[in-house]
């Protein structure tokens, strides 16, 4: 960094160029924008709309239960209504809203122009929207999921479940893809795209939380995807994974679902707390007390949350010692959770608190959440849980946790961050009214449910008799729900109508200290120039920073080449490493989301041809996307970013964001694979002879497959090394032979179960062997695709010894592929013999 006076610059021309580069396309093509601000807003609005829809379903539930023996809804409609209420709230609101907020807020908060993969972000949004509309729309055709939001077999594998179960499985699998895409984007963004100087000890706490949460998504969502795969194979092709008569076990679904489902609660909760960690210091007028303690709490909760899943299964007859392990972990997680609450209380005590509308929602949320947390500690105790299991006590508990720990903080965030959207403010009067309506309405609705539950009212019943003492409690709950609904309606009115007449207000009305408040809402470029950060609260502690940034005095103040650029920095100390050129406006994200969505939707209705064609279209779109939008060789080696710093425009290997994205994606992929292997050993554990007396794939074919895949791996790594040393021809030869070896590996993988005549519908053992072999083959096929892609890039001169990013990433993929092959083929080939 140098403080030498900058030479004369034409700042107006700089701004003109920046504005042109980051501008949204006009007219209807506005919807092809990939800019994080637009994607974040659309994502958030869609998630909010889904929430309102699910809220109406919630009101329907309450209307039905208001009086005993009610016939407003039929039993079947009621089943669909509550299943969809839970599903939409969890999958289409709670998780996506945080992805939306993160995509909107993170770049300005980290001082980045954009997240590293804007088109991936857009792809995630469109996938979410298509999948969400598909799942929600089903109820208007009486075809919504009707077996609860967790789809337990055998009910959900039965004929009774109807097409709703397929809509749930395929629609949500598609949305999970969107969540994984967001996780990749957020992890790489937070680790590699922070402003120079923003070391890990200076990172905004929001970013810390989001980093942990995105990491959790990588380990939590894939087990559900694996579960969905097994479930759909049973529903479509009668592979008996959950059918006890043929060796399957419904409990495997419960394990896979809750290995996802419990961390999911914290995936929802932590980002909401992250919002509070930004809001509380602002209104206490001081830095947060105990920054490191918050990091402890976020990381600790992230880990512990994976040791809780069986507490949803306390009543399934597992050995008591197993239950006790999970009970202990469920108690332990109260420690880091409470640490966060105490940090907020300490910060408020140490500062002078301004009780603004966001702060009201924040405090109300904390109060409600603490109550939910305490009943959580109660139900974490096995004996108590056996009493309360599947009653309205649990309904009360989970709503206290989710509404206090998520909905109220999100509303706090809405009121707090609204000025960043277009410079206008939400109404304080409406906000306070809405808060008190929501707060009282919520408690009137859900506090009595504890008692209703303890009096024995089970969940998911569409009506109840009059003489068992549940009637007046339910009536009170319904009245409270209506008040809660009115409160939320007030906020909707405030967002949509009231605000139009408002003039623009101050950009930083709360005098907040974090970087995102430098933002100029009318500009689309993120930050005018990227500053060097020296404090956790740069706007409080770095004098004149906003003026300097907005005058373009810091890094990257121009876009001479007419390309969208942001800075890549090192993971720990955020030293500038590279100028990254990110993708701009494009149809390709929408095209890929629409075609992939068609694949899933067509599968639901078993339209095989449509599904196949859409799959091919998706593949073409993907190739176009990769070929034209990634790995471009820049016109020069380095670029001056101002203040005497020059940075490379190209990076490969561990320094490139693509490598990190591959690493993160494959970690998630590895988790899904591990879940399938878990399934294999689960079946081994529960049966005396898990093969059911049937023959296995033998050792020969699996070992041959392993050898072939190992050779393909060696060829790929060799290609990378030869290419780096200038041996382009040798590299191309190795890539081609790698592809051939890999193709032979795929064939050998499938030959094992096929040549042994294993019938996957006969018993769960052949079914799980087939699934593992297919998994390895599909990954082998993806490996072939990548090897041929690198080959083509090399021929086209887009992959050279100096510019070899793709080859590094593909070699990384093959490291994971080698591990997948080693585990798959040792397990299916050698394990039965060893036993």
């Amino acid at each position, binding site marked *: 960094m140098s403080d030498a006076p900058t030479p004369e610059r034409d700042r107006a021309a700089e701004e003109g160029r920046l504005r042109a580069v980051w501008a949204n396309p006009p007219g209807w093509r506005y919807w092809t924008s990939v800019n994080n601000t637009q994607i974040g807003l659309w994502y958030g609005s869609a998630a909010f709309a889904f929430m309102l829809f699910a809220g109406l379903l919630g009101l329907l539930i309450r209307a039905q239960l208001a009086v005993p023996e009610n016939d407003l809804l039929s039993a079947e409609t009621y089943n669909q209504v509550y299943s969809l209420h839970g599903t939409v709230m969890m999958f289409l609101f709670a998780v996506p809203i945080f992805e939306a907020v993160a995509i909107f807020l993170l770049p300005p908060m980290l001082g980045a122009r954009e997240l590293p993969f804007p088109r991936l972000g857009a792809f995630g949004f469109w996938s979410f929207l298509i999948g969400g509309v598909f799942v929600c729309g089903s109820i208007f055709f009486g075809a919504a999921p009707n077996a609860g939001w967790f789809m337990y077999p055998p009910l959900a594998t039965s004929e009774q479940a109807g097409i709703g179960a397929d809509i749930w499985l395929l629609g949500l699998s598609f949305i999970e893809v969107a969540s994984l895409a967001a996780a990749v984007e957020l992890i790489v963004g937070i680790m590699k795209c922070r402003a120079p100087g923003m070391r890990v000890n200076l990172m905004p706490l929001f970013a810390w939380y989001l980093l942990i949460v995105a990491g959790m998504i990588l380990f939590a969502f894939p087990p559900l995807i694996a579960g969905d795969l097994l479930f759909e194979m049973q529903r479509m092709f009668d592979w008996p994974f959950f059918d006890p008569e043929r060796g399957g076990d419904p409990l495997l679904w419960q394990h896979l679902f809750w290995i996802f489902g419990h961390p999911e609660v914290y995936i929802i909760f932590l980002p909401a707390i992250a919002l509070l960690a930004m809001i509380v210091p602002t209104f206490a007028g001081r830095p947060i007390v105990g920054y490191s303690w918050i990091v*402890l709490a976020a990381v600790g909760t992230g880990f512990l949350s994976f040791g809780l899943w069986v507490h949803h299964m306390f009543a399934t007859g597992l050995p008591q010692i197993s239950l006790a392990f999970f009970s202990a972990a469920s108690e332990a997680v109260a420690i880091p959770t409470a640490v966060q609450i105490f940090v907020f209380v300490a910060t408020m005590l140490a500062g002078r608190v301004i009780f603004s509308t966001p702060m009201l929602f924040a405090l109300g949320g904390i109060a409600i959440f603490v109550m939910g947390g305490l009943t959580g500690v109660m139900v974490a105790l096995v004996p108590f849980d056996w009493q309360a299991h599947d009653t309205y006590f649990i309904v009360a508990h989970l709503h206290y946790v989710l509404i206090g720990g998520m909905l109220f903080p999100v509303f706090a965030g809405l009121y707090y961050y609204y000025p960043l959207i277009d410079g206008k403010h939400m109404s304080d009067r409406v906000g306070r009214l809405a808060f008190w309506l929501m707060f009282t309405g919520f408690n009137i609705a859900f506090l009595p449910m504890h008692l209703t539950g303890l009096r024995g009212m089970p969940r998911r019943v569409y009506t109840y008799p009059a003489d068992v003492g549940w009637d007046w409690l339910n009536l009170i709950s319904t009245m409270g729900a209506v008040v809660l609904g009115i409160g939320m309606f007030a906020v909707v009115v405030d967002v949509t109508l009231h605000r139009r007449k408002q003039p623009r207000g101050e950009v930083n009305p709360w005098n907040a200290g974090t970087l995102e408040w430098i933002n100029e809402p009318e500009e689309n470029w993120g930050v005018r120039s990227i500053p060097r950060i020296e404090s956790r609260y740069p706007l409080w502690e770095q004098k004149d920073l906003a003026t300097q940034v907005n005058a373009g005095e810091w890094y990257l103040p121009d876009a001479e080449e007419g390309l969208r650029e942001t800075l890549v920095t090192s993971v720990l100390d955020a030293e500038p490493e590279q100028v990254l050129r990110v993708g701009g406006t494009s149809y390709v994200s929408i095209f890929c989301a629409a075609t992939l969505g068609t694949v899933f939707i067509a599968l639901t209705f078993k339209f095989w041809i449509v599904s196949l064609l859409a799959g091919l279209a998706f593949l073409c779109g993907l190739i176009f996307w990769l070929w034209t939008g990634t790995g471009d060789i820049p016109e020069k080696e380095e670029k001056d970013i101002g203040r005497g710093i020059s940075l490379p425009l190209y990076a490969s290997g561990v320094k490139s964001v693509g490598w990190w994205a591959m690493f993160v994606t494959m970690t998630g992929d590895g988790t899904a694979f591990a879940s399938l292997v878990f399934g294999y050993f689960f079946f081994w554990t529960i049966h005396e002879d898990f093969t059911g007396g049937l023959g296995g794939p033998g050792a020969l074919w699996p070992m041959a497959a392993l050898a072939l895949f190992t050779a393909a791996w060696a060829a790929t790594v060799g290609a990378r090394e030869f290419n780096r040393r200038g041996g382009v021809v040798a590299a191309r030869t190795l890539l081609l032979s790698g592809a051939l070896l890999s193709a032979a590996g795929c064939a050998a993988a499938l030959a094992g179960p096929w040549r042994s005549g294993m019938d996957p519908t006969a018993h769960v053992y052949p079914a799980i062997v087939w699934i593992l072999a297919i998994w390895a083959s599909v990954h082998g096929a993806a490996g072939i695709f990548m090897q041929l892609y690198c080959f083509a890039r090399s021929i086209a001169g887009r992959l050279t010894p100096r510019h070899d990013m793709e080859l590094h990433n593909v070699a990384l993929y093959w490291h994971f592929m080698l591990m997948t092959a080693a585990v798959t083929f040792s397990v299916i080939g050698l394990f039965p013999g060893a036993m």
Partner: protein
Amino acid sequence: MWRLLPREVESLWTLFTASVVWALHFLACYVGAAIYCEKPGLLGYDFVNLRIAIAAVTALSLAMIALSAILAWRQWGFGAGDPPHDDPTRQDRLLFQGYATLLLSGLSFVGVVFTALPALFITECLR
């Protein structure tokens, strides 16, 4: 021991060491008990074996967490400097990492003890 590992481990991942140990310990206890209770022949018929195994894994895990805590404590300068460690220097970043790692080691230690406690009281595969 002081020379066993580099004085300042320049990585983000050391932050997670103790938590990873907790996770592995948890998994070992859960998987061990699950397999023992489903297939008693495989791991020996006496429940005491399982409890001894859990005790051994617990002792090992606690020792590893203690080691991670000591290394973190050293990275934190043995508590010489007070938080918040918010200076824009490499030194303060290292102190912050050391302190956060130390805190996480404490939580993981408690977590491991919590997880192991059931083995003290439960003496059979009761369902």
